C-alpha cells in the first residue's frame, strides 16, 4: 500500500504531528510505502529549523528529518500556507527580501498541486489535524 499523509496542525500544540509520525513509522515497519507527507495549515510549522524543545521532550522536527533521511519520505511544506506563517526556505527568503530562512533539513517547499498528486498517486490518504 502507498500511504499519503497530511499533517495540518503545528508541532507541540496539537498531537496531530505526533500521531502522523507514529503512523508513518508503523506503516514503514510493516513494509508499506509512504512516498510523501504534506504539511498544510499550521502543519507547515513542523518544518522549522529553529525549534529548541526541552531536553527531555521529543524533537518533532528532528524526528521527521530522520524519517526523510532514512526512508526517503518526501516531506512537502505548502508554499502558500508557509508564506503566510513565515516559513521560508533560502530561495524564498531571497525572493521575498527576508533576512532569514528557517526550513529544516529534509523538508521542501512546494505547491498545493503536490497534495492533489499525492491523493492521485497513493492508495490511502490519511489526515492528522484538529
Amino acid at each position, binding site marked *: 500500500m502507498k500511504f499519503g499523509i497530511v499533517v495540518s496542525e503545528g508541532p507541540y500544540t496539537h498531537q*496531530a504531528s505526533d500521531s502522523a509520525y507514529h503512523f508513518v513509522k*508503523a506503516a514503514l515497519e510493516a513494509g508499506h510505502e509512504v512516498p510523501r507527507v504534506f504539511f498544510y495549515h499550521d502543519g507547515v510549522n513542523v518544518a522549522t529549523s529553529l525549534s529548541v524543545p526541552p531536553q527531555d521532550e521529543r524533537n518533532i522536527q528532528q524526528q521527521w528529518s530522520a524519517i526523510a533521511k532514512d526512508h526517503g519520505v518526501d516531506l512537502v511544506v505548502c508554499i502558500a500556507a508557509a508564506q503566510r506563517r513565515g516559513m521560508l526556505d533560502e530561495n524564498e527568503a531571497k525572493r521575498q527580501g527576508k533576512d532569514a530562512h528557517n526550513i529544516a533539513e529534509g523538508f521542501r517547499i512546494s505547491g498545493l498541486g503536490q497534495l492533489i498528486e499525492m491523493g492521485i498517486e497513493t492508495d490511502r490518504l490519511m489526515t492528522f489535524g484538529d
Partner: protein
Amino acid sequence: MATLHTVNKSPFANQSLLSCLAHAKDGDTVLMIEDGVYGAASGTGLADAMVAMASRVALVALQPDLNARGIAAARLLDGIKTTDYAGFVELAASHDRTQAWL
C-alpha cells in the same frame, strides 16, 4: 467498500464523534485516536449511543492514546476493541478509504 473513520477530539468538547457516527455506514470502522479515545469510556452520557452503534460499525480505540490518558481496559465500553499503531495501519490498508473527522 468500507470506510475507516478517525476521530481525534473528545466528544464532550466537540461534535465530531457524533457527526461521524451519524454518517458512518454499516460495516465501517470508527477509530478513536488522541482525545477521541475519551469516547470509548463506559458510564458517560454517550454510552447508550455508542453501544447502539456497536452493532452497525466496528468501534476501536487506539491503545497508546488510552494509556496516555490513564483509561484502563476495565473502563472501556463493552464492544469497543483496541489496537496499536500497527493495527491502525492495517485498518487503513484493509478499508477502501479513510476519512478524518477533525
